[in-house]
């Protein structure tokens, strides 16, 4: 893909901070996509509750295969909540409950006989704050394959492959035994991406993956996402509209509205379209107000 022109420096740079700044380009213009996605995952009428509080209301959309989908919107609009319901991470919150249907290749991920462990293996997740385990870089990457009992001919090769794909190999190949916590923030986040890639998921969910990183580290993660989309479907929550504009093929705009009959605000999907369309000619006034910086 053409994105390689922007990531050659990944080979030479020792550290995030030595990388040269780069010009912002809406890379989306380089891709022609059908108006409707060929979905790998679909939400249909999804409501997410925390106890009695409805955090997300009636969301229906499809996430394209080998596409990057961005979920944007103001704080409290439920975009992270929705993302966490896509691989059943919300199961960990005792009061959380999902209604409606979430499907992966047409199978409901909330079905009775569905194992949430298997769901999370197929639909990986990268978190807001880089969270490497207090283990060596090698063990961080090998963790997923080990716990899931993946059959691998050579763990060393798998670790190298995952670190290479996440553009970290050249920086860490001589210190694989060092602690993952010793890396810079941007490197830690790429390590978390490598760790996720190592279990070969089909979808990678990213929950504001760059919000704890400086602009240069952010730009490297964005380059990486573009490279990864050939093999993975990526769904990213971001507070940064420019980031959505730069990397996403499609963008869904959410907002928070007072729910009927109660004072609680609940998240709603306002508009979902190709990123180019959302950022040039949004159909909804609220979207336009948000992306032009009038609120949020």
């Amino acid at each position, binding site marked *: 893909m053409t994105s390689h022109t922007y990531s050659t420096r990944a080979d030479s740079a020792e550290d995030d901070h030595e990388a040269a700044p780069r010009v912002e380009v809406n890379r989306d213009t380089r891709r022609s996509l059908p108006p409707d996605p060929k979905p790998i995952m679909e939400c249909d009428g999804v409501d997410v509750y925390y106890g009695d509080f409805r955090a997300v209301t009636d969301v229906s959309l499809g996430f394209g295969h080998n596409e990057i989908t961005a979920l944007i919107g103001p704080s409290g609009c439920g975009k992270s909540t929705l993302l966490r319901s896509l691989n059943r*991470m919300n199961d960990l919150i*005792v009061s959380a409950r999902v209604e409606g249907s979430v499907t992966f290749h047409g199978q409901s991920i909330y079905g009775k006989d569905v194992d949430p462990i298997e769901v999370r293996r197929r639909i990986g997740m990268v978190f807001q704050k880089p*969270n490497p385990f207090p283990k060596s870089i090698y063990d961080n990457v090998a963790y*997923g394959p080990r716990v899931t009992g993946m059959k691998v001919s050579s763990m060393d090769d798998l670790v190298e492959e995952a670190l290479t794909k996440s553009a970290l190999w050249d920086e860490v190949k001589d210190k694989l035994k060092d602690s993952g916590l010793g890396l810079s923030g941007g490197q830690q986040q790429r390590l978390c991406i490598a760790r996720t890639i190592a279990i070969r998921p089909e979808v990678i969910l990213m929950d504001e993956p760059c919000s704890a990183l400086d602009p240069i580290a952010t730009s490297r993660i964005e380059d990486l996402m573009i490279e990864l989309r050939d093999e993975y479907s990526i769904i990213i929550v971001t507070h940064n509209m420019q980031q959505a504009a730069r990397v996403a093929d499609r963008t869904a705009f959410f907002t928070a509205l007072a729910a009927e009959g109660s004072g609680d605000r609940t998240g709603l999907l306002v508009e979902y379209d190709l990123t180019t369309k959302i950022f040039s000619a949004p159909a909804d006034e609220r979207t336009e107000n948000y992306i032009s910086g009038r609120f949020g």
Partner: protein
Amino acid sequence: MASLGAIATAPLKAKREGDKSAKSIVFMGVLWFTIFFSVLCLGTLLVNAFFDGWTRLDGNLITRYSSTVLPETAGARAAILGSALVIVITAVLAIPLGVAAGVYLEEFADPRRWYNKIIEVNLTNLAAVPAIVYGMLTAGVALSIGLPRRVVLAGAIALALLILPVIIITTREAMRAVPREIREGSLALGATPLQTVWRQTLPSAVPGIATGSIIALSRALGEAAPLLLLGGLVFVSYDPNGLFSGYTVLPIQIYDWVKEPQLAFQQVASAAIILMLGLLLLMNAVAIVIRNRYQKRW
């Protein structure tokens, strides 16, 4: 601009009257006095014990058995070995059980279930129950199952019950200190909750658990009441040699010697107090070193 300049050059002197008011001074005085008083008590005890007992801090103290006829050469050999054996058995009984219970309560128990709520409340209460109650409990249970009361195993069970709540609470706190991101990261990679505990949360919590366990064991080491109630022997002139052996421990030995009228017994009691305080200090120091060296900062 002129007014901005005036603001910028205004003095940064703080108004410190708040710290110098009579109320603050009295409060600081009370705080200092309480510290001084606690240190003074400990200091008096140490100095007193040292002056009484330093002549007896010799090889006899650890190599010889106690004696009724020769107080001048009586030693605490049986009590030292008894304490060591009882504490080891206590640790073996209490730590695995306490850690397992703490892990269950923190990671797997549904806090909304009524029985978990009851366990929760009781646990905090149990940690505050007087030690002698555990002695009574053990005596009662031992009687009903036919276990002799005066043996190492019975003493270790009483002490294990005594420190179990502390170990459970410590384990829970150490597990809770492991950030949620680590658990989520593990689960998001397809690990089961059990794998997550075994490979991530528990290893990260080990320094905290070790620290808490050592402090709990040092409490057990200094405890005499439950063992006295169980009828721990005061005069033992043999090494304890198993779970069903008679035994004595340092606090009981000290208690026995202090009761005697002869000066020589008072002196050896003081020597044994120094020895026990030294052991306690050592254990607590080890706990602090473990905490400072291995506890993870997130």
